[in-house]
């Protein structure tokens, strides 16, 4: 499995990766509808870290030895042995947030409305990885292993 790499030297801190990630994981997948008309405001699974002028976008690193999977009390988080992706099963998630505490990158986020967590799924089942394809400056790139 490859990785999404952040390139801080060309990240301009526009946060468009967050916007499009949220759209990609919204109900309608329509940017205006998702933000302005859906009941629940769409939440991103990628976050831009900022200490100006430094900025870069970070999402789940899909670690080889994932602390979140070890910490998960309900078996909701698993590492897919084939793809290597860390997958989250919302059905099993009990919202204990142990994974949030243990993630060394701070890349598992709390979905307050549903008392569950959300995290990067590498846009599974979608045509493109939205944060990568929508970055106007190629500051996020997907690199195969």
């Amino acid at each position, binding site marked *: 499995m490859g990785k999404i790499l952040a390139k801080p030297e060309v990240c301009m801190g526009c946060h468009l990766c967050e916007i499009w990630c949220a759209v990609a994981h919204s109900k309608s997948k329509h940017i205006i509808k998702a*933000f302005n008309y859906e009941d629940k405001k769409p939440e991103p699974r990628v976050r831009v870290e900022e200490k100006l002028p430094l900025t870069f976008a970070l999402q789940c690193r899909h670690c080889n030895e994932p602390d979140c999977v070890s910490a998960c009390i309900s078996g909701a988080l698993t590492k897919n042995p084939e793809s290597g992706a860390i997958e989250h099963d919302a059905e099993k998630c009990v919202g204990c947030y142990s994974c949030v505490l243990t993630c060394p990158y701070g890349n598992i986020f709390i979905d307050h409305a549903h008392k569950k967590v959300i995290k990067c799924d590498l846009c599974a089942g979608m045509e493109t990885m939205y944060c990568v394809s929508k970055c106007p400056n190629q500051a996020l790139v997907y690199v195969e292993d």
Partner: protein
Amino acid sequence: MYSYLLPEFTIERSEDKCIRCRVCERQCANKVHEYDEDLNKIFSSNELCVGCQRCVALCPTNALYVHPRVYDYRPNSSWTRDKVQNLKKQAETGGVILTGSGNDKPYRIYWDHLVLNASQVTNPSIDPLREPMELKTFLGRKPDTLEITFEEGKASLKSQLNPNVPIKTPLVFSAMSYGAISYQAYKSLAMAAKEFGTLFNTGEGGLPEHMREEFGGNAIVQCASGRFGVDSDYLNSAQIIEIKIGQGAKPGIGGHLPGEKVSANIAETRMIPMGTDALSPAPQHDIYSIEDLSMLIYALKEATNYEKPVSVKIAAVHNVAAIASGIVRAGADIVAIDGIRGGTGAAPLATRDNVGIPMELALAAVDKRLREEGIRHKCSVLAAGGIRCSADAIKAIALGADAVYIGTAALVAMGCTLCHKCYTGKCNWGICTQDPFLTKRLNPEITSQKLVNLLKGWSHEIQEMLGGMGINAIESLRGNREHLRGVGLEEWELNVLGVKGAGE
């Protein structure tokens, strides 16, 4: 003092499209947009907007529309909005009105009054996709004669040749210094020139040492009145050395780089202390005559072992033909002429808009004069200032240029929208600024490709037009005014251009 200045732009936001993502707020260095958390709304201040369209281009829902305000005062053909506005600005500050980029006044653009020829019936046109079409150009002094001797059946050249620099297309990036533009923009130009096989010009801000080995082979280095960054290594790292006498956007004035822009890297490259103003004197203080110019030309040739052509760049002004003749006789191998529409990072508005002459007229006058004097072959002519498209470039070549400099066109390809605020150091497109948060907006890997695409596109178009004329090498078009006709020009203009009217 309370400002009576009216906003120059109006910002319209479609509230039903705006998703409050705050991209506009984060992208604007002028702090036009501000998000209000209490109301979950974004407020925009028209009076701060410079109309650079960055927010419009980045808005993911196309919710923004920024447009110039129409004349707010009573319409008046003499007292136009900018005249009134500038007066008010000056009344509030007492300063010189500054501006950036190139002249935007409606002087006649001769390119738009010149049309090209094409072959019909009596001579065949050429299809550049099927037949060779040469754009390769050699910059430098050509020999007076070509003497060839034959010994034992082998031919050898007797005449001594002068150094010439080959370029794959007659398009060269014009002088834009590291300091005036960001490192990312500067490097993008260098990368594109290298990839395509043409040249970029360092301007007067030096060439960073770490770039010399990689990009020196595609560099024209400038030696300007401030002598910033000039030493023997710098001169020897390049292909061509250019003495900058003048600039089309501000003839008679030297470059001014404010201390705030002089970062550690720029200071090192320019060889000046960090944070000091880099002020180039108006004249070169060792050049007060053609003889003085000759001394500098030969000093530079001496320093580079007579291996590199020396160019002299002047602004197009009155008597430009006589000046160019003097420059060639002083020993220059290339004469670069920068017209009134040439760009700049900062210039007084009065100078930019009123000093100099259109490059088309200057170029034609210079080419004609050098031919009359029998010295045209002793130099290459580079035309600069206001080349907007491939057609302008090919017309310039037909008017007598060997190649053209493209500056503003290259900036536009990188993202510039000609907002004319280069002098503020707040370029939202990351081009004309040294703010590290803004310069990151240019990714040299992307922008260099855009520049390569520009060169590629223009070169293809030039080949198509050349083929249409039945010419298969750009050299055959140089100064070939038979392929140009004037439309809507007066007789004196046709005379200066040396072009017949359409139908003749």
